């Protein structure tokens, strides 16, 4: 009875136009994300259901057998480790080195600063196809092919990161630096104890970018790894598919694909806002 006296919050009524837009978006959204959904569902089907015709969407019986098969057929654990190490090292290097360079380009004053900044920016225009053959020869000559060093060294610096973090550092008021200087802290301390903690959000967003890009790399790990043990997940899943193709054993292949896209999907679901904002602001995928 008492509830009656409390007026419910009025929701604006949905017009037929609203419903149409929702319907359209939901249909298109489902079509777009369909490849991911069917892959996920298929990865949990029993092998006989994967190849039944007509195909059915939902697993009749949920099973993790495909994951176990994939895990046993190829060293997926090793691929996972390699991907984590490779992406982790690249991210770490890009974040630290970009912080340092962005600091120099935004706060420090020294001769040649602008020329160097444009040089760094200019490197963004250089297509990877132009440099990957000499890089391959150089890394091989150093004896780094088929090693973590070979996988990571060419990507340890990021012009994109320098650009993104510099933009952010430029927005921090100069007074803060002056105050820190009066308190007697030098550049190094100001950077790490004040500027970096202040910029956690931007640095975090850049780190996610760097990680996703490294994680999803294909061409470089494909040519620089030789042994099965050094393959990253992206390369491993491709070779796993080729070996399974004739037998049409797609269940384990889809399980492998889920492992390969899992961390990226989780990062997307957890940090979608920052990721989208970063892409919209910079217009780059990293």
């Amino acid at each position, binding site marked *: 009875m008492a509830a009656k006296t409390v007026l419910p919050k009025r929701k604006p009524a949905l017009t037929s136009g609203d419903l149409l837009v929702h319907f359209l978006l939901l249909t298109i959204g489902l079509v777009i994300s369909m490849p991911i959904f069917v892959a996920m569902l298929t990865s949990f089907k029993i092998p006989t259901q994967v190849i039944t015709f007509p195909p059915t969407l939902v697993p009749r019986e949920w099973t993790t057998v495909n994951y176990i098969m994939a895990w046993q057929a190829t060293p997926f654990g090793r691929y996972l480790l390699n991907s984590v190490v490779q992406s982790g090292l690249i991210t770490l290097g890009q974040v630290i080195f970009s912080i*340092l360079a962005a600091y120099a380009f935004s706060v420090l004053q020294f001769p040649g600063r602008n020329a160097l900044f444009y040089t760094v920016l200019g490197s963004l225009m250089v297509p990877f196809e132009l440099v*990957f053959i000499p890089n391959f020869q*150089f890394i091989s000559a150093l004896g780094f092919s088929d090693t973590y060093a070979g996988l990571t060294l060419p990507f340890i610096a990021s012009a994109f990161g320098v650009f993104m973090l510099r933009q952010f550092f430029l927005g921090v008021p100069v007074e803060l630096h002056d105050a820190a200087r009066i308190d007697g802290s030098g550049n190094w301390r100001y950077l790490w104890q004040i500027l970096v903690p202040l910029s956690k959000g931007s640095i975090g967003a850049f780190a996610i970018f760097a990680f996703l890009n490294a994680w999803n790399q*294909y061409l470089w790990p494909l040519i620089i790894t030789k042994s099965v043990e050094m393959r990253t997940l992206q390369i491993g899943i491709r070779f796993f598919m080729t070996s399974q193709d004739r037998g049409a054993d*797609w269940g384990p292949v889809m399980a492998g694909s889920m492992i390969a*896209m899992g961390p990226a*999907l989780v990062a997307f679901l957890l940090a979608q806002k920052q990721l989208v904002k970063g892409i919209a602001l910079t217009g780059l995928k990293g």
Partner: protein
Amino acid sequence: MNQAVSTSISQPTPAQRAALARRRTLWRAIEGYLYLAPTLIGLAVFVFWPIVESFKLSLNRIAPFGNQQIFVGLGNYTRLLTSSDYWNSVRVTLLFVLGTVPTGIILSVLLAILLAYPLGKMASVHRTLIFVPVVISSAVAGVLFRWLYHPVVGYINYWLVSLGLFDSMGDAPNWLASTQWALFAVIVATTWRQLGFNVIIALAGVQNIDSSFYDAAKVDGANAWQRIRHVTLPLLSPTLFFLFIINVIYSFQAFGEIHILTAGGPGQATTTMVYSIFYDAFVGTPQRGIASAQAYMLALMVVFMSFVQFAGINRRVHYQ
């Protein structure tokens, strides 16, 4: 006494002051370069130096027997220009760009306009479903579509038959093995993976448009379509321009899907310039000279597009 000490500290001779200032400038420069060193060294070794090295490679050819480098001058370039394989890769690349870029832009703008609609709580659901390909790698996209296109167990032909477009699975094309359809199939997969990124950029562009423009259009009695046609699209022109350039650049460089879906085949139906570079440089007997020459030709196109982009951004395409 005190007086003397303080003056000697606060007022050094001009010569001392100049020396001090010089030392400070020098230290500031050194400090700046130290902060930049890792990035600059990394870029110098792995971006700038290889540009030169790549050009040197493109002027040489490996002798058929042994590892002897033979200087051939621009020989690799003239060989390319007279090679039908090379022109095929240019043609395939242009078709690939034509297939991916306009579709991607039109779809993403349409979706952005729909997503900019006030959607309430459902907004995040719609966005997640539409943005999600942005985190999918080219390798995973390749593997997923290889399966979806499969002539026997793939969903795509099954759905096309269910929709009545083909009478039976046997009538539907074997997409990846058909000279006629393989490039189209690769274009669809690549457009799909690029779509999330494109919608994000397009949506940001649409949301940047000041609502007062729409209000003014409404006062003038413009209907929804007229508002899109005469307000959204013109004001979106900088975004459209940006999308166009960045998509052309990405499409010129697409590799993963092609490598996994068709490996350039059947025949050379999907051998793009990038695929051809990869193939010549790393498959079979490496021919890094001719591969580097191709890389230079491709880079010229990509860098040209980048310049157009910078020039366009400086000139501003929009009227706002």
